[in-house]
């Protein structure tokens, strides 16, 4: 399973929407219910699923789904 596929499953679960299809240029404005409160659930779920830990700076820099995927891939490769 690729990173984007695994991430898609997490998005569907966190936002309670099985039809959700994520794309690299997707931002919080494009997903119903993606606010600062659900964002923290998303991040903790990603960290648990991929067994990694983001730094504060990495989290504050991310602007879209593409940035998130790139950061996950970079951490998994390290």
């Amino acid at each position, binding site marked *: 399973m690729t990173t984007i596929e695994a991430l898609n499953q997490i998005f569907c679960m966190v936002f309670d929407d099985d039809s959700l299809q994520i794309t690299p240029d997707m931002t919080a404005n494009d997903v119903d219910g993606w606010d*600062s409160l659900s964002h923290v659930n998303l991040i903790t779920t990603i960290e648990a699923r991929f067994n990694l830990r983001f730094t*504060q*700076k990495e*989290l*504050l820099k991310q602007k879209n789904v593409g940035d998130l995927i790139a950061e996950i891939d970079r951490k998994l490769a390290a």
Partner: protein
Amino acid sequence: MAFNSFSYFLFLPIVYLVFYFTADRWRWLVLLSASYGFYASFKAPYLLAVLLMVTGISYACGLRIAAQQDEAIRKRWLWIGSFSCVAILALMKYLPLLESRTNSIFGFNNTFNSTLISIGVSYFTFQAISYLADIYLEIEEVPEQHFGRFALYMAFFPKLLQGPIERAGDLLPQLKKPYQCDYNAMRSGMLLFTWGLFKKVVVADRLALYADQVFNNVHDHTGLSLIIGTYAYALQIYFDFSAYTDMARGTGRMFGINLTENFNSPYLATSIADFWRRWHISFSRWILDYIFKPLQMGCRNWGQIGTALALIIAFLVSGIWHGAKWGFIIWGLLHGLYLATSTYYRPYQKRLHKWLGIEKNKWLKWWQVFVTFNLVSFAWVFFRTKNFGDAWYVISKWFHGIKGLWSGLILSQGSYVLVLLIAMLMEVLLVSLLMKPNIIKMINRSAIVRHTVYCLLSIQIILFGVFTLDPKFVYFNF
């Protein structure tokens, strides 16, 4: 020099003419000199020194952060820069309080004017911190090398005193762009400025006459008079502040600069979270990005408690930012608590609305607007009253009688009571002509509609405007 003062009505066209006839490569210097001149008009030379100091610190620290590869050193420069800015701000805001406390113990006289001392400082220090954070986070990839342009980014006079707090990525590129005189930008800028002037002198300042009557002498009022006073203040502060932003944005447009929109019909918000997405947007974005998010992410393993705590702390900071008064801290704490508790009940509320099948019901929406407006107005009481005793009196007497209502109206509006009724009729006509809240779109309407609006605005400003010798905006104090 406030935007609604006669000196500004002279200052603005003169600056524009000099700007227009100057070669493009020197235009930044015209705007920078005008901005420092504008700030100097408050006759407090130390303010210019503070502005220059914050500009110098953020410029130098920005260059240092960008020049370093080592993460620890980058972080150190971010902290040095941000801490210096916060220290300057805290000193400016809390010095008069410290001095008055010390003087009351030792019996000395005060030397600082507490209302003027920090005018504008809160805004440009927050902008400086935002600049440094954006460079550190690499949101802003290249720091500004040209000190003059950077100084203009910090001091640009339309946004100097009350914001909007501009992000470097939004404003700096515009200040570097060659200026091209655009007829439509000029027209829309002038219209936006006039619309702001109307909101300030006709609506906000007239509401202030009543709100001031109530809040300066709360014990002369009870019940309905206090309720109307509270709502009058809620509307006054909105019209006052959004008027300033419109006038700032209008001025900016004349120079080819688009400043950030700071308000989006905040009293139509359906929740407190929604209110903060619509009220003082540049400030709430600052609090969200640089206080709330780092705190929330730092406490993310604490679950919902972490988020609730981050919200309370972020809004406490927001309260403290407003100044050295318990009322501001209670106001911030109240908004923090509103938001923190909503993180717990909101999922259940959504499920309940879904179960009842009313989640798209327009009456539910209007009910939520009503509740949100009242929660916000309740918090404004602490913000406006002189002390906690007055605030408690207002709240405890809301539903007791109507003492002071008529005398308050007469004292505040005088013989204008009848004239105000006519003004309200004209208001209805004006609003129905506008239809859309975005005044700028008015320039595209037919000539008859446009000119009717222009005439109505001008007549009302002349007839019903409140003009004083020392005009001020509410947020000048913060």
